[in-house]
């Protein structure tokens, strides 16, 4: 097992290098490069000041040297300072990270505990009313723009019914609340964002777990279990379910990129104080060190999700370890 984990970790290194190269290339795609972005807004910046900036960022050196310098800084999580307020980028990201993690972890849990039973029940009662209803729901789920659904829910629960707050993480008078009121306040602010960011995954995973379960139910060992007269419940929940779970576990890790990517739009809609909103604001303000920092951290989180998925996979399915 340890050897397997070590191998996965080693495998991550070329991936990481690749990610940094792509990010680096994207930045240098921009006409004029990063220094022009910083100075472009004020034409009064002298050529001399520009040259000074160039040497500050090492932009006067050849590309591969620049990449190397940039990479060594990345390894120390040194993304530089924000153009906007001069604060360290890594600090800005760290203070936003908890809100994003809270949102994503809750979404993952919601996806897992709702989509999985839906998929399993659909498969067990194939072609039943429930199954057909869920198939339609899943199909709609693939086609609905989630940000539009967010608007509709804000409209329904925020504007028409007035039950839920539609933006932010706290109410204005949050500091004066007692502990339980604070908890309830945060929960109320969480409901819509969590549901919306889980939405795409819900459809995807319930469909996937249905397929996986259907496949397992056709296996010989399920027929054997039935043939030896085991009660149907035991066949399904002991023999079939365990095997159907294996591929689903990995999907949870793999749904991280979608969750993080979705964060940029959902956190912006709900004014959720997370990393996605920080990234969006940075993009709108052309705050280039922050954009890069968020990009690299987001990719890192994704890689981490993949790694966790791989390890869980090996954990639940011993066959994988010896591949």
């Amino acid at each position: 097992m340890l050897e397997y984990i070590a191998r996965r970790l080693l495998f991550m290194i070329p991936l990481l290098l690749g990610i940094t190269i792509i990010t680096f290339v994207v930045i240098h795609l921009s006409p004029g490069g990063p220094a022009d972005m910083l100075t472009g807004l004020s034409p009064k910046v002298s050529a001399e000041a520009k040259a000074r900036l160039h040497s500050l960022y090492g932009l006067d050196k050849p590309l591969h040297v620049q990449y190397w310098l940039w990479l060594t800084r990345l390894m120390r999580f040194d993304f530089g300072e924000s153009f906007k307020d001069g604060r360290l980028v890594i600090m800005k990201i760290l203070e936003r990270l908890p809100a994003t993690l809270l949102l994503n972890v809750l979404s993952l849990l919601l996806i897992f505990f709702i989509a999985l039973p839906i998929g399993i029940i659909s498969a067990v009662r194939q072609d039943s009313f429930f199954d057909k209803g869920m198939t339609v729901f899943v199909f709609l789920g693939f086609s609905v723009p989630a940000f539009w659904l967010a608007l509709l829910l804000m409209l329904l629960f925020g504007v028409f019914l007035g039950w839920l707050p539609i933006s932010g993480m706290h109410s204005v008078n949050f500091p004066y609340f007692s502990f339980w009121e604070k908890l309830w306040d945060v929960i109320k602010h969480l409901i819509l964002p969590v549901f919306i960011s889980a939405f795409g995954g819900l459809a995807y995973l319930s469909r996937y777990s249905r397929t996986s379960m259907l496949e397992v139910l056709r296996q010989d060992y399920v027929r054997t279990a039935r043939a030896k007269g085991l009660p149907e419940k035991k066949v399904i929940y002991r023999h079939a379910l365990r095997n159907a779970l294996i591929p689903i576990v990995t999907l949870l890790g793999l749904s991280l990129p979608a969750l993080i990517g979705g964060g940029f739009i959902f956190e912006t809609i709900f004014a959720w104080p997370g990393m996605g909103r920080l990234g969006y604001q940075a993009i709108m303000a052309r705050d280039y060190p922050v954009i890069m920092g968020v990009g690299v951290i987001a990719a890192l989180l994704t890689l981490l999700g993949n790694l966790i998925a791989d390890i869980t996979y090996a954990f639940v399915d011993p066959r994988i370890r010896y591949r």
Partner: protein
Amino acid sequence: MWKIFWKRFRRNKLAMLGAFIIFSLAVVAIIAPLIAPFSPDQQDILHRLEPPSGKHFLGTDDLGRDLLSRIVYGTRVSLLVGFVAIGIAIVIGSLLGLLSGYFGGWLDTVIMRFVDIMLCFPTFFLILMVIAFLEPSIWNVMAVIGLTGWPSLTRLVRGECLSVREREFVQAARALGLSNRRVMLVHLLPNVMAPILVTATLGIGGAILTESALSFLGLGVQPPTASWGNILTAGKDYISVAWWLSLFPGLAILITVLAYNLLGEGLRDVLDPRMMAE
């Protein structure tokens, strides 16, 4: 062969419905000026934010423009983005997949590692980043969605190629001394066309969703050009006073994407019996 497909396809009612909707949308896009009751850019400040009525069927927006007309014109943007973006992704994806699956070896390794890297990025952020560094415009949106959309297709095509490559007719073609290019394009490609077609159809729906999300964030199609996504931006700003601005453009997106998904799933059933298992 195509006759059999058509016969099976016609029996699939949902797929037919999808095809019908897509066809109607294409017609709407082409004859938009004939259908739209007003010019999509004609402002009328006195009648801004009017609810749906006999004159403005779907109401007006914050500048008094007719919502129905803007949605009709938005059809053009969505279809254009969907087709061009997926066209780019399909060309890159199939080509790399073919090369990777046919030649194998180090080329395969390099291409597949690159695919792994691309799949690791939260794609939506990669798109946001590129658009931020370039200028947001419909052309950049199409290019970026296309250039980030190919990796999963490459994987799929490669997998198909690996199995087709070992079949007798490919072996025979190689034994006859045909050039690699000819074997790939004439013998391999037609046999992996089915999954490409299915992925392309489903992908168009996805590209339309991405475009609308980008435009919604102000990083896609720029106003005053109407796109379903950027109408929704106004919808968000006026959410407490003008529900119609939020509801109708989203419905348009939903119906369009649904149509492509229906068609794609239908094609999957018709073209590839192995995928029918589901």
